[in-house]
C-alpha cells in the first residue's frame, strides 16, 4: 500500500476526491458530476460510491452551484463545486467575488466559506468556443481567494487534499491538456502539498523560467531544446497564484540573473505582469537582461484550426529563452 503508482492527473484528482469524500462533511456538486462522472470523468464512480446526496448532479446553473455551495460551506460543510469549463465560470463570478471571497471579512471571521471551486481551464485540445479560456488572473485579482493550479498528477492529488482542508475558498484550476497528458508517480496516501509553495522542477544556471499549469511541460521541452545549445534553464512551477511564493522565484532569479515568464492567458494584465513586477522590485540589480513574457495573445482564443498560433509552444518559449540569454 505504500508504493506509488503511475497515473494521470484526472485519475489523481479522482483519487483525491474519493479520499476527501470519506469525510462526511465533504460534498461534491456540479453539472453531470454523478452518473457520467463529469465531462472529463474526474468524478467517475464517486456517485455510485458515496451516493447522490453527497455527489450531486445539479441543474445547469453556475451561479446556483457556487451560491448553494457557498451556503453549504457557511453552514459547516466542505463542498467541492465543479464548473465544467472556465468559460462557463463567468455566470458564477458575482457569487465568487461578492460573497465567497468576502464572507470572512464582512463577518469578521464569524462565518467562513471553506469550499473548493474546481475549474478545468486552458486551451490545447481544440475544444469549442468558450471551452479554452485561461482567465486565472481575474480570480487572482480578487482579495480573499486562493488560486492554485497543479502541473503534475502528484501535485493535483496533494493540492486537492490541501484545498479541501483549507479554511478559505480555493479556486482550483485544472489544466484540461494535462488531465491525461500528465502521468507521473502519485503516492497512495493522503499527503498534502501545501498551497502557496512553488517548486523548482528543473535546476539550471543561466535563466529562470516561471510558469504554471499546462505551460510547465511545454517549458520543460523548450529547456531540453536549448540545453542542446548549452543553455542551462531553471524552471519554477509556481503552483499557486495566490498565495504567490515570491521567495522561491527571487532565489532562482538572483542566482541566474535572467527571467522568462510563460502563461497561456492573454499578455495584457496577465498574471505574468505581477511576477515581473515582484522580480524588478526585489531583484532588479541582479538582472543581466530585461525580463521577457511569453503569453497568449490579446485575442479571443482561436478555434481548433488556428489554436496552435495562440498557445505558447516550445519553439516560442525556446526563442524567448535564447533572446534573454543572448541579450
Amino acid at each position, binding site marked *: 500500500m505504500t508504493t506509488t503508482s503511475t497515473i494521470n492527473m484526472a485519475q489523481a484528482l479522482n483519487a483525491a476526491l474519493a479520499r476527501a469524500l470519506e469525510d462526511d462533511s465533504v460534498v461534491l456538486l456540479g453539472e453531470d458530476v454523478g452518473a457520467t462522472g463529469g465531462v472529463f470523468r474526474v468524478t467517475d464512480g464517486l456517485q455510485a460510491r458515496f451516493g447522490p446526496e453527497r455527489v450531486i448532479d445539479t441543474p445547469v446553473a453556475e451561479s446556483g452551484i457556487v451560491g448553494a455551495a457557498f451556503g453549504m460551506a457557511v453552514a459547516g460543510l466542505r463542498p467541492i463545486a465543479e464548473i465544467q469549463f472556465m468559460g462557463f465560470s463567468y455566470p458564477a463570478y458575482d457569487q465568487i467575488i461578492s460573497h465567497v471571497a468576502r464572507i470572512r471579512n464582512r463577518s469578521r471571521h464569524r462565518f467562513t466559506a471553506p469550499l473548493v471551486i474546481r475549474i478545468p481551464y486552458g486551451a490545447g485540445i481544440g475544444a469549442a468556443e468558450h471551452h479554452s479560456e485561461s482567465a486565472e488572473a481575474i480570480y487572482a485579482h480578487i482579495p480573499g481567494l486562493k488560486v492554485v493550479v497543479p502541473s503534475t498528477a502528484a501535485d493535483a492529488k496533494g493540492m486537492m487534499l490541501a484545498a479541501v482542508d483549507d*479554511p478559505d475558498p480555493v479556486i482550483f484550476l485544472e489544466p484540461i491538456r494535462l488531465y491525461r497528458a500528465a502521468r507521473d508517480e502519485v503516492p497512495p496516501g493522503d499527503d498534502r502539498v501545501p498551497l502557496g509553495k512553488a517548486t523548482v522542477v528543473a535546476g539550471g544556471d543561466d535563466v529562470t523560467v516561471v510558469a504554471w499549469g499546462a505551460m510547465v511541460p511545454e517549458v520543460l521541452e523548450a529547456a531540453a531544446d536549448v540545453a542542446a545549445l548549452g543553455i542551462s534553464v531553471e524552471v519554477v512551477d509556481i503552483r499557486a497564484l495566490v498565495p504567490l511564493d515570491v*521567495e522561491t522565484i527571487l532565489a532562482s532569479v538572483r542566482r541566474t540573473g535572467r527571467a522568462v515568464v510563460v502563461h497561456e492567458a492573454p499578455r495584457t494584465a496577465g498574471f505574468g505582469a505581477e511576477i515581473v513586477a515582484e522580480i524588478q522590485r526585489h531583484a532588479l540589480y541582479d538582472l543581466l537582461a530585461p525580463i521577457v513574457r511569453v503569453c497568449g495573445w490579446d485575442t479571443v482564443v482561436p478555434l481548433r484550426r488556428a489554436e496552435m498560433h495562440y498557445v505558447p509552444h516550445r519553439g516560442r518559449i525556446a526563442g524567448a529563452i535564447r533572446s534573454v540569454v543572448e541579450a
Partner: protein
Amino acid sequence: MADPIRILDTEGRLVGDPPVDLEETRRMYAAMVAARVYDRKCSAMQRQGRLATYAPFEGQEAAQIGATAALRPDDWLVATYRDAAAMWMQGYTWRNLILGRTGDERGGQAPEDVNVMPPSITVGAHMIHAVGTAWAEVIKGTDRIAMTMFGDGATSEGDFHEAMNFAGVFQTPTVFLCQNNGYAISMARHSQTAAETIADKALGYGMPGVLVDGNDVLAVRAVADTAVTQARAGEGPTLIEALTYRMGPHTTTDDPTRYRQDDEVEEWRKKDPLDRARRYLEDNGAWTPEWQADLEEEEADRVERAVLEAEALEAFAPGQIFEAMFADMTPGLQQQRDEAEGAT
C-alpha cells in the same frame, strides 16, 4: 388578482382565525414598536451625519416580525440591508446593526450561535445562500431551516430563478419571503414583472406560492408558521409574497416624491401595521396607552445604549483591515500590512 390572506382588517377587526394567542400577539406588537423606534433613530442619526446611508423599513415591520416570529432561534436567516427588524428578531444585536451602518465590518458579525448572515447588499444573489444553508442542515441531519428575505426588485435578478429552481429540485427546507413594498428604488412593481403576482411565480418551480397582506402581522405569522412547519417536516420550500409598502425613501439618499404620489403614501399610512395590531389588542383589552409609553421609553433607552456602544468602538487601525481576509494571513498580505502601518 387573488385577495391576499388577511386575518386583521385595517380597523384591527378579526376576519380570520388568529394563529397565536393575545400574549404572543402582544410580544410581536412590542417587537414592531421596538423596530420602529430603532428605524426612526437610525434615520435621525443619518441626518446628523452619524451613520452612512440608511435604508429605512418603516411600514414593513409586520412582514419582518411576523415571519421571523415563526422561526426557531437556531434557524438560518439570510436577509438584506432593509431587514434589520427581522435580523434583530433572530438574535442579531441593535449594536451590531448600528455598527454596520456607521461603516464598520464588525457590524456583520452575528453573535455565536446566531445563524444570521450579514445583510446582503447586492440584490438577489443571497437567496441561493438560504438554499445552501438549508441543504447543509439536511445533509448534517438537523431539522434547522432557512428563511431568506428579499424585495420585489430582487425577483427580476437571474439569481432569484436559480435559487427558486434549486430549492424546488432539491426540496430544501427554505422559506422565501418577498416583501413586495411596491418599489425597487424608483421602479414600481408593475415595471419589474408582467406576472400578476410574485407569488404566482412559485408555480414554475413546483412549490406553493402564498400571497399575504404584509401589513397584517397575524396573517404573516400564520402563513410563515405553515411554511416553516412544512419545511421542517421535509415537505419542501414555499414562496411567500407579503404585500406591504415602504413608507420612507429607498435610502436616505433618494427623494421618493420624484417617483410616487403623496396620496398613495397616505393611503398606505391608513394600513399601518402597528396601528392595526394595536387596535386589535386594545379591542381585546391587551393594550393601554401606559404600556405603549413604557414600551417606547424602554426601547428608546435600549437603542440609545446600542448607539453608545457602537460609537464607543474604536475604528480600525490600518493593520486591522488585513486581519480577516484569510484564516492565516498570507505572506503577501503581511507585507502589505507592514507597509500600511508604515513599518517598512
